[in-house]
């Protein structure tokens, strides 16, 4: 019986797609656990160094690093952390949208924007809107090493030191839980002193051996660790978003299969009814 052959084929192909999406969901779930662990492990260091740096920004060192001095803003830099691969729902798009919104606000004030991009997905998007891209760090992979990121970070920091850009922001997704990832844009440079009254009085550290060397080393490590942590966190977000996206896709496939099955059954039943009617009317004619 040739009835509904096309529908049968369609059901088969949707089932195949469903198998793939459910496999991807499981892969993402297991990777998510690993990336989340990595994110948790790195968190204490990046939190601690952030608090040390904010104390430092409140101190009154004899040596003021350029990273600590706010100046008139004519041009700003963004480091945008994106994922390497797609199929992770609105994760990248939401982030890009919030970056583009900020860029539009800055543009309205006559401030230009330079971009440093991490991950494969950011490049094509920002190129297509004609943004000014100064550094690209593609293929960060699932277990990124700081060494892979240093080059790009360097470009942005040098631009800041040379005065090409006057502020530097870091845009990435914050991992809130498996269901929610929030795109956030954080200011990296100049350093933002923490609003803590305990540090408002005039004080300073004793520096050993020498303030300049120490502050430079510490700042560089701070910035690297912040970017690195953002990349790790974005990795965890990517897997979580991918898991949810694939879960939805699997469920949608299930729904589609049910609908197609219903249409197929209807068509088959109609064909049988028609055939019987033909036989009956044929017999009556004899």
């Amino acid at each position, binding site marked *: 019986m040739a009835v509904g052959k096309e529908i049968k084929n369609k059901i088969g192909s949707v089932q195949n797609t469903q198998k793939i999406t459910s496999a991807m969901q499981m892969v993402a779930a297991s990777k998510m656990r690993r990336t989340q662990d990595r994110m948790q492990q790195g968190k204490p260091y990046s939190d601690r160094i952030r608090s040390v740096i904010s104390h430092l920004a409140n101190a009154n060192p004899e040596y003021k690093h350029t990273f600590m001095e706010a100046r008139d803003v004519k041009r700003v830099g963004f480091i945008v952390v994106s994922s390497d691969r797609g199929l992770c729902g609105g994760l990248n798009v939401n982030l890009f949208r919030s970056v583009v919104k900020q860029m539009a606000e800055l543009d309205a004030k006559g401030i230009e924007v330079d971009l440093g991009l991490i991950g494969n997905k950011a490049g094509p998007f920002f190129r297509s809107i004609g943004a000014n891209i100064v550094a690209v760090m593609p293929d960060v992979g699932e277990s990124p090493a700081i060494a892979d990121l240093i080059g790009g970070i360097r470009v942005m920091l040098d631009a800041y030191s040379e005065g090409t850009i006057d502020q530097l922001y870091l845009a990435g997704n914050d991992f809130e839980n498996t269901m929610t990832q929030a795109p956030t844009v954080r200011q990296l440079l100049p350093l933002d002193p923490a609003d803590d009254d305990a540090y408002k009085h005039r004080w300073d*550290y*004793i520096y*050993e051996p020498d303030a300049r060397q120490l502050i430079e*080393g510490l700042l560089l490590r701070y910035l690297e*660790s912040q970017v690195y942590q953002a990349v790790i966190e974005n990795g965890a977000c990517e897997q979580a978003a991918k898991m949810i996206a694939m879960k939805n896709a699997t469920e949608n496939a299930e729904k589609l299969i049910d609908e197609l099955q219903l249409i197929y059954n209807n068509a088959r039943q109609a064909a049988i009814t028609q055939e019987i009617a033909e036989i009956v009317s044929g017999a009556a004619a004899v």
Partner: protein
Amino acid sequence: MATLQCEIVSAEESLFSGAITLLSVRGTIGELGITPGHAPLLTGINPGAVALHLEDGSEEIFYASGGYLEVQPGFVTLLADTALRAEDLDEAQAEEARQQAEKAMEERNAETEFSSAAAMMAEALAQQRTLEELRRRSR
């Protein structure tokens, strides 16, 4: 007794968090002992043992291969490059690292390689020193 809140973190994990009465560490320009009420201090640290005296009088030893130390009146933060609980240090590994460093220094052919070999050597020696320290105290 006055205590000091201490945190030791490395890029990989948080190693220690709690109240201490004394922290001794090898700073870039010499040995440092941090007690409660120390003036704010920011310093780099050299590879070596980090010893903590806990409130109950016991002692914990860590190994750090470098990093930064921040002291504030009420607390102290050690940002280690790589840190280990001293008990996790492996004697055989430390010895192997030292021999490798020695070999690298003998085979040096460029100044840059020499400095990296020297750093390797310093680290391996510091690991061994930490182990010796640990052994001496446990006796």
